[in-house]
């Protein structure tokens, strides 16, 4: 048994035989031709066929991985329509009287080299795209069907590197996992693997002799195990079984409504902490995003993210959800979430300190940048905003003033934006108790049970000594939730839960009885909750 580690791209486990995949390098032989126009015609037919194939690939990718990620194949077909690329092929055929295969190979190499020499890493990486399209045309010219059947049995694909088209083309039924030496976590291939939810590792020191050996790919830890022993196999068989059970659940519940046997409906939304979570939001069939934690944009950086950087991420999320609701929570930093460049003082009691909306209201430049970015993104779908750590109605007034300023600025600059629902988190006992007043001022409530529990019970969740005292089902919490729901409904607004308690399956029935309108949980919890809802009388 040997273990290798790599960078994990997509979680899950797989075990099976390794198939070492090497590109069938299309042998290109330089041949002299007599009739260049005939050869150009051959090229044009192959080029057209390649564009057709890419069109089909695009359609397949839209289905498998979503439109935004599929666009790379549109770019590929545009590259094949590019005048400079085609003229280079024509010139080589005409001036050197060579066969089309050779002309394409040389053209592809030249363009790939041109990109390869660029300074910027992003543009450098485009050389693989040029190679990819050139190889496709050559394969067609050679009469070699592009290989979509990788094997007759399910295999783990091990390769130096995989082009995006190779990744999507592979027959998914026989594909257990990907392991490559090259490729980064942000490459198109990595994104595609993630969207296809196939366990994948990159940066592994692969060996050709693994071909045919049994292996385990652990996408949770980023480990590849070659020739695992019995115990290890058993362990992974169990994890795999659980994964399969989950997937079966997913299959039967996908597309179904969140409705009880007596007809009560509830929205099940997803909590996400990063745009990389989007794939699992779609796979788990969330009706929307109930909590988009915007902190990651700030925590991943060494300096404040610009409006433009934020806008791009929000827009991507909003576009991917295609009209479904996306509730973005404004910056909730401070306490356990720190970024050095905020230069926050060390506090005695950070959970009750300078954090979340308190930072936003005292440092409005940070807040306004974020609000502008969110408002701009709202033009691309359905966006709601919610504000964390509210304790008073005055805070809501201040927020509303700032929101009005932002809207006036955008109007003045003629920048489009959509209607945005304004909501607050109910995560302090104060907010829960005055929720009757707050309900008059906002469009919705989302109850953050983690903080609400910690503040109500006066128990620090980080302190393990207190575990015996901690009771997440404490009657005080459940009564506060009921109070918030009642007060929301009195004013005709909706109320949901976005804390960990929402995923507690033993409370799902109680939540429905309370009249909650929405539950937002991590994507993986959606289908199990849907299952329970559909069994409730």
């Amino acid at each position, binding site marked *: 048994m040997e273990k290798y580690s790599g960078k994990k791209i997509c979680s899950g486990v797989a075990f099976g035989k390794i198939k070492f995949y090497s590109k069938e390098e299309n042998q290109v032989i330089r041949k002299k031709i007599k009739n260049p126009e005939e050869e150009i015609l051959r090229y044009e037919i192959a080029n057209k066929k390649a564009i057709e194939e890419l069109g089909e690939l695009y359609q397949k990718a839209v289905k498998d991985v979503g439109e935004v990620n599929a666009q790379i194949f549109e770019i590929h077909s545009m590259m094949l329509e590019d*005048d400079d*690329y085609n003229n280079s092929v024509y010139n080589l055929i005409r001036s050197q009287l060579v066969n089309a295969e050779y002309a394409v190979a040389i053209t592809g190499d030249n*363009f790939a080299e041109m990109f390869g020499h660029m300074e910027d890493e992003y543009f450098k990486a*485009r050389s693989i795209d040029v190679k990819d399209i050139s190889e496709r045309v050559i394969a067609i010219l050679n009469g070699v069907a592009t290989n979509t059947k990788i094997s007759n049995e399910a295999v783990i694909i091990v390769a130096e590197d995989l082009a995006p088209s190779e990744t999507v083309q592979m027959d998914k039924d026989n594909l257990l996992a990907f392991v490559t030496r090259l490729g980064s976590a942000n490459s198109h291939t990595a994104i595609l693997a993630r969207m296809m939810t196939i366990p994948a590792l990159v940066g592994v020191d692969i060996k050709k002799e693994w071909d045919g050996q049994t292996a385990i790919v652990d996408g949770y830890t980023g480990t590849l195990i070659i020739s695992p022993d019995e115990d290890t196999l058993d362990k992974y068989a169990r994890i795999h079984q659980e994964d399969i059970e989950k997937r079966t659940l997913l299959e039967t519940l996908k597309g179904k409504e969140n409705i009880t046997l007596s007809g009560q409906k509830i929205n099940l939304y997803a909590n996400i902490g990063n745009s990389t979570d989007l794939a699992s939001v779609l796979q788990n069939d969330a009706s929307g995003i109930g909590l988009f934690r915007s902190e990651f944009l700030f925590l991943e950086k060494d300096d404040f993210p610009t409006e433009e950087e934020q806008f791009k991420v929000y827009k991507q999320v909003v576009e991917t959800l295609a009209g479904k609701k996306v509730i973005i929570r404004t910056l909730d930093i401070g306490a356990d979430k720190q970024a050095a460049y905020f230069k926050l003082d060390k506090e005695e009691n950070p959970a009750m300190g300078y954090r979340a909306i308190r930072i936003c209201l005292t440092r409005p430049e940070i807040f306004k940048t974020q609000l502008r970015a969110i408002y701009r993104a709202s033009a691309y779908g359905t966006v709601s905003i919610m504000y964390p750590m509210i304790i008073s109605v005055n805070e809501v007034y201040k927020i509303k003033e700032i929101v009005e300023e932002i809207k006036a600025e955008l109007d003045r600059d003629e920048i489009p934006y959509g209607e945005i629902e304004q909501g607050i988190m109910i995560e302090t006992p104060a907010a829960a108790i005055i929720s009757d007043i707050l309900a008059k001022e906002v469009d919705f409530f989302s109850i953050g049970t983690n903080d609400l529990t910690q503040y109500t019970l006066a128990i620090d969740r980080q302190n393990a000594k207190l575990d015996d005292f901690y009771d997440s089902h404490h009657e005080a919490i459940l009564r506060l939730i009921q109070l918030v729901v009642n007060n929301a409904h009195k004013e005709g607004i909706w109320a949901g839960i976005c804390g960990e308690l929402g995923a507690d399956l033993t409370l799902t029935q109680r939540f429905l009885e309370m009249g909650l309108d929405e539950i937002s949980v991590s994507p993986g919890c959606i289908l199990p909750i849907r299952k329970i809802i559909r069994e409730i009388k």
Partner: protein
Amino acid sequence: MKSFNYTIQDEIGIHARPAGLLVKESKPFTSTIILKVDGQQSDAKKLMALMALGVGHGAEITITAEGDDEEAAITKLEAFFKANL
């Protein structure tokens, strides 16, 4: 001839996706449309050439259009850059 200047806001610059979109936007116009940056230039209807310019974040570019529909081309492309780049 009509033209406008623009500073690229996008973090990566004119990468594959916006370059593809720019070509798509430019192609319907009969005018010759040129993108200039740092003394280099490319036909805005040519994807590879555009990408080869490696236009990055903060680059100051000039778009010129010359032909029968130059006015419309400039209006459309200026809006395109503002919205996408």
